[in-house]
């Protein structure tokens, strides 16, 4: 069985008399260790798919299973617990908390875990070092460049050692060079076994993925396997 199983996923947004079908019965299976790119035009439903996969938004119909867990069958606050234990989010606009330092932002997912503070700090320092920001841990987000903020966001997504990393346009607001750096970092993480699902509409990112699915009008349009990924090709 695949790591992620998506069956007949449908999402309908209603606003008064308006009814928008963002997803129309999407089926998708993702194996562990995949670097999956989800592409599509704006409004194709890719962000909705990511939100549902991330346990943030209840689907109208269909089911999502991650590691055998049926997400939307989880009651009460267990969905929040699932997000904490299974997922790392990387947002397009970084979404760092402005009044917390880089290190504190990275420690954020650990704030509600019972773990000695020293261990939390140690873990956060390790991931900050992993993304190359060991020297910037005391800086507030507004004292960091866009690329650095994105790295902090990635470190924050990794600190809990989640089985699944979800990224929504992580390079959307970065210049080409910085984008390359971030994609390289994600690719390295993937090489270490990290499953990543990344939403992007930037065709330049295609070369980094193992597999690309594209959505059109809420339906799965294409599903291509890509090989070999860009970085491997470069290094080889």
């Amino acid at each position: 069985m695949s790591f992620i199983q998506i069956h007949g996923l449908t999402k309908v947004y209603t606003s008064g008399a308006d009814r928008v079908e963002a997803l129309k019965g999407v089926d998708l299976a993702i194996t562990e260790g995949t670097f999956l790119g989800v592409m599509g035009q704006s409004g194709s439903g890719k962000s909705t798919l990511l939100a549902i996969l991330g346990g943030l938004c209840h689907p109208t119909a269909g089911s999502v299973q991650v590691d055998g867990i049926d997400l939307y069958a989880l009651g009460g606050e267990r969905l929040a617990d699932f997000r904490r234990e299974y997922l790392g989010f990387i947002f397009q606009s970084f979404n760092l908390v402005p009044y917390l330092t880089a290190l504190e932002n990275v420690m954020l997912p650990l704030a509600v875990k019972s773990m000695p503070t020293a261990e939390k700090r140690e873990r956060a320092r390790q991931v900050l070092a992993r993304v190359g920001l060991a020297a910037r841990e005391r800086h507030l987000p507004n004292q960091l460049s866009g690329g650095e903020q994105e790295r902090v966001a990635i470190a924050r997504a990794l600190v809990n050692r989640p089985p699944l990393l979800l990224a929504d346009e992580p390079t959307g607001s970065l210049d080409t060079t910085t984008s390359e750096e971030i994609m390289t970092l994600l690719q390295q993480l993937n090489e270490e076994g990290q499953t990543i699902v990344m939403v992007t509409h930037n065709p330049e990112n295609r070369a980094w993925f193992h597999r690309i699915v594209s959505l059109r009008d809420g339906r799965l349009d294409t599903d291509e396997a890509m090989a070999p990924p860009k970085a491997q090709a470069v290094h080889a």
Partner: protein
Amino acid sequence: MRLRTIAFNNLRRRKARMAFLVAGLLVGIATVVTLLSLTSALTTEAEHKLDNFGANILITPQTEELSLSYGGITLGGVAVDPHELRQADMVRIREIPNARNIAAVAPKVLGALEVKGIRVMLMGVDPEVEFGLKRWWSVRGRALQGDDEVVAGISVARRLGLGVGSEVDLQGEPFAVTGILEETSSQDDDLLIISLAAAQRLLGKAGTVSLVEVAALCGDCPVEEMVEQIAAVLPGVKVGAIQQVVKTRMHALEQFRLLAFGVAAVVILIGALVVFVTMMGAVNERTREIGIFRALGFRRGHVVWLILMEATWVSLLSGVLGYLAGMGATWAILPWLAEHHPQLVWSFPLAGGSILLALVVGTLASLYPALHASRLDPTEALRAF
């Protein structure tokens, strides 16, 4: 890193909003503290004044003809009272169960004398007690000290042509006039006041007194009970309470207290509204942040806890600062309202109460914003997906 680190850093690094929140609640708490401590200080002062305001218990011989004012004496100056109180019995007043509530026992002997062919009233008093008790007496010259001195009421002084420093002959004994009582518009204007011992000697009433005025110490002490207690230790005398004065003053104070509580309640309500509106604003401003917290796996309870924790700190700070500010304001205002040596009382119950009030108001006013924040849809909040 714990939730409290997040809350603390938010407050620490967003000082302007924190200051506004603290100020909103602080003003409310400070007002309450000011009003309550002012009321308390003024009540204490009024009670203190009451102690010195005069007697509120009157002990007179058991005689029906006696008037309540200055027993045994009529304006015509004829002593009709054959009964007198025995001075030696008066020590028993100090033995009643409520003896600690007795501020002063002022025995006096009254009688009529003829001076320079004019009949005048003579009152013998314990000078120290009497002049302490009759705070409204304003003496030109000085009060009595020795047994050969006299203080004259303004009317009798005019009639007898007495002035400070002059001498008057009473029953053949020379008395120095040390002071003249300024006009009191009462019977006191017609009195010649000398020491108790001298009056007893001149009036031939050795060992007896005509009446005793007792000043009970506090506003809410049990005057009726004390009356009964005195009556019990002094059988055969008449003990009465002059409650009017006490009751009127306590009523006025009670009304002031009610007003203070009313104003305090309104101010606290406004403070709570300020906290509520600011917290609501803060939650709306932090919508995205709350979305991040939720996306990162914070439970609703964590979000509520986070916001309430911030509210608690803000409230605690407001409570402490509000108490200090209120005491400061009281210290500044009190001299304008009180007449005598106002005492600023650092009351632990008031300090604890104001901090507790700040905590309750601050937390309650933040409860809805906190719940509102926890119910935010993470995707809506993030607007990233």
